[in-house]
């Protein structure tokens, strides 16, 4: 087979790529992280790279998506470019791979109740008179601490190490206990090191919290893009990849396990902590990520009646999943509620203590699938709204994730102003800026109730006159210009087109309809809601006023909105630090009443109404 040299810049990453592979495949094989929002199917046009040496003629699909001038400049799509000669490839922005990942969150008080315990034992030394086995003598010590003989157990991997440890440490050992199971025997007194890591595995990002399991102290927080992004940006494209590609499930599973192992390494780097001191990890993930993490085919979630393979909480051996921590380590997997309402939602509910709240609260985690829960200690109802990826910038013409270079907020002042993540010239808009832009258009009467951008001569609001110039026609479509070509980082204008507004109408309509259905299912009206808790990255960065103006959140609730940060991560931490909280997660998962929107009566007309805007 012919190989060609491909160099990626910046960074001069050099790859030998077999002829016929796409750039995307080559980048995946090399572990280069890059965004392929549509999963590399050549539909979104977001994986633009510039080929500065070895450029070939564009294929028809590229000619459709990329403008002629850009094609001339060597812009191609990484997913469609096949390697047939040596290439020099420039990635559009050296910060492309850095993302704003939300790691902070609200704390709440709770009682630490470790799943795992360490006991220091001074084992009776064997002699000719006392010649019972090593295991027998360890059990004797444990019985003195209150354990019951017939309940104590262990396994062969522990027995293999036991004689050496006992003799090296002169019979002074620390037993690591999981209930009545001895999961580790360590030399001498190691009680002061009992660490764990809580993971929130999102479709886009993975966040890990290194915790001292005895004190609850957070020692480090690490995060990374979910490497599965290379195989598709959203849950549905992952589901498709898992079931349609050859060994697709394995690739996804291995990618997430590898990412977790890398994050563990990163968390303990520059500390004196060794992997062996980590005894437990907890996992909060959406149902699809949960299944893939466990290596279970998630296909059944994708098709009606959307049943997960598994929703019960699980405790597994870390070694079975090739998680690189102490051999005795355990993995605590939080339970799912239903097909598209997963363990991440359980974790959010656990951290917000909705199950004990006197007041009725609305909890919203906005993402590709927006999970919505409404409830109090009386009952909780939840649903998943298929919002689509618009809030994450996908399927929006100038859209991008909340990464460096993304416009994150837009202000209608004397003139249009905006802020950019990381400063500098903007490269696109992320979800929060999309919300601000559209909310402004609604408030200024530039959009009508049906979401149509009006013509300049139809504007009646005097303030709207200031932004007449921003109303443009671009590639046969009406659009609202946010930044001209010379103001952007890539020389292409940034705008919100009529189609983008249509995408947003679908997304916010789905979310708002979800809220309406839950209110109906709970039997209350919107005024009965005491508080709105917004979880997740998007919920944390959005402007609540904008969200209310466009009707993503009922406007009546604007003053009741509170951002709670990465609540799923908080829930994962609670479940790791406390066996009681972990048990509570099981109760929450069992008690939450799942409402399937697709089969809810009148859902379609509710959704239809919710796609409208409420104009002044």
């Amino acid at each position, binding site marked *: 087979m012919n190989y060609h040299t491909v160099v990626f810049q910046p960074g001069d990453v050099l790859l030998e790529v077999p002829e016929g592979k796409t750039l995307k495949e080559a980048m995946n094989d090399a572990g280069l992280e890059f965004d392929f929002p549509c999963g590399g199917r050549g539909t979104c046009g977001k994986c633009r790279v510039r080929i500065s040496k070895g450029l070939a003629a564009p294929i028809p699909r590229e000619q459709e998506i990329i403008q002629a001038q850009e094609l001339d400049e060597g812009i191609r799509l990484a997913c469609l470019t096949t390697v047939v000669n040596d290439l020099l490839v420039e990635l559009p922005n050296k910060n492309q791979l850095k993302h704003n990942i939300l790691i902070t969150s609200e704390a709440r008080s709770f009682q630490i109740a470790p799943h795992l315990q360490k006991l220091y034992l001074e084992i009776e030394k064997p002699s000719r008179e006392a010649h019972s086995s090593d295991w027998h003598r360890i059990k004797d010590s444990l019985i003195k601490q209150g354990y019951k003989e017939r309940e104590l157990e262990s396994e062969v991997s522990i027995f293999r190490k036991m004689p050496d440890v006992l003799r090296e440490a002169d019979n002074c050992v620390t037993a690591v206990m999981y209930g009545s199971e001895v999961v580790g025997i360590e030399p001498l007194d190691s009680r002061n090191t009992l660490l764990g890591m809580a993971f929130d595995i999102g479709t886009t990002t993975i966040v890990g919290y290194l915790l001292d399991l005895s004190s609850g102290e957070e020692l480090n927080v690490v995060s990374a893009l979910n490497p599965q992004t290379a195989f598709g940006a959203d849950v549905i494209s992952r589901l498709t990849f898992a079931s349609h590609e050859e060994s697709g499930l394995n690739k996804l599973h291995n990618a997430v396990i590898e990412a977790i192992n890398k994050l563990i390494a990163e968390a303990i780097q520059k500390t004196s902590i060794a992997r062996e001191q980590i005894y437990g990890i907890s996992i909060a993930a959406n149902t699809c990520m949960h299944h893939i993490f466990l290596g279970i085919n998630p296909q059944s979630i994708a098709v009606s009646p959307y049943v997960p393979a598994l929703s019960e909480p699980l405790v597994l051996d870390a070694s079975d999943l090739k998680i690189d921590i102490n051999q005795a380590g355990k993995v605590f997997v939080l339970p799912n509620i239903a097909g598209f309402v997963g363990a991440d939602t359980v974790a959010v509910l656990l951290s917000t203590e909705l199950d004990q709240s006197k007041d009725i609260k609305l909890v919203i985690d906005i993402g590709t699938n927006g999970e919505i829960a409404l409830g109090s200690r009386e009952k909780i109802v939840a649903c998943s709204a298929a919002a689509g990826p618009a809030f994450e910038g996908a399927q929006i013409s100038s859209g991008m994730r909340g990464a460096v270079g993304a416009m994150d907020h837009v202000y209608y002042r004397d003139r249009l102003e905006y802020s950019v993540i990381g400063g500098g010239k903007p490269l696109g808009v992320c979800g929060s800026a999309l919300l601000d832009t559209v909310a402004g258009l609604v408030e200024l009467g530039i959009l009508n109730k049906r979401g149509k951008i009006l013509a300049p001569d139809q504007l009646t609001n005097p303030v709207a006159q200031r932004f007449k110039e921003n109303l443009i026609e671009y590639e046969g479509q009406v659009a609202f210009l946010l930044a001209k070509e010379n103001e952007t980082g890539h020389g292409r204008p940034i705008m919100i087109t009529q189609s983008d507004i249509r995408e947003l109408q679908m997304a916010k309509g789905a979310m708002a309809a979800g809220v309406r259905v839950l209110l109906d299912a709970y039997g209350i009206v919107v005024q009965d809601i005491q508080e709105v808790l917004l979880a997740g990255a998007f919920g944390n960065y959005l402007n609540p006023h904008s969200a209310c103006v466009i009707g993503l959140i009922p406007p009546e609730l604007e003053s009741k909105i509170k951002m709670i940060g990465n609540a799923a991560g908080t829930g994962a931490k609670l479940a790791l630090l406390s066996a009681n909280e972990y048990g509570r997660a099981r109760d929450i998962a069992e008690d939450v009443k799942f409402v399937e929107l697709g089969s809810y009566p009148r859902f379609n007309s509710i959704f*239809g109404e919710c796609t409208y805007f409420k104009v002044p």
Partner: protein
Amino acid sequence: MIDLQALTQAVGDLDEKTIITMIEDFVATNPSGEEAQKIVFACQQGMGIVGELFEKNEYYVGDLIFAGELLSKTIDLLKPVLNDVATEKVGSIVIGTVQGDLHDIGKNIFGSMAEAAGFDVYELGVDVSPSAFVEKVKEVKPQIVGMSGVLTLAIDSMKETVKAITEAGLRDSVKIIIGGNPVNEDACKQIGADAFTTNAAEGLKTCQGWVS
């Protein structure tokens, strides 16, 4: 006598109150079936306006959903006076959301527009198995089968359904159109359908072309 032009315009404007009042007043006069038929025709023309406004980007999905509901409401109101009138249908079509998928907004919009355009629409609902499609095709012998789905996995179900129709020896007797977010030309070829659409109004035009 009812102002048919005003009714057409009211349907085009999605002016529910006016439409319902007009129809109720009309039904109260105890009209003949032929007169009622004219009302249906006026409503159909109003739906035509809705379709045009959608294409012009004035109307959007919410309006189409609303229009569909409005139309079934008016037909329900007219039913008592429409009985026994033989209606001339332009063609017949069997539609459904394919197995494994529950999304039916697009399919419902298409269904009500097709009905408004004078098609006999046989609606199979959601999560429809290939054999259910085959049974219905055998039973009503439509000219067209419409399959809808939103999930990318729906493509597989569509393929299975075409295969089942072919195996039942019915493929040559029907035109097949697929609709929904994941469909495109490649998918259409792969599935073995005759046409695809991501837009109900456009899909209806394709169907009208087939039966004209």
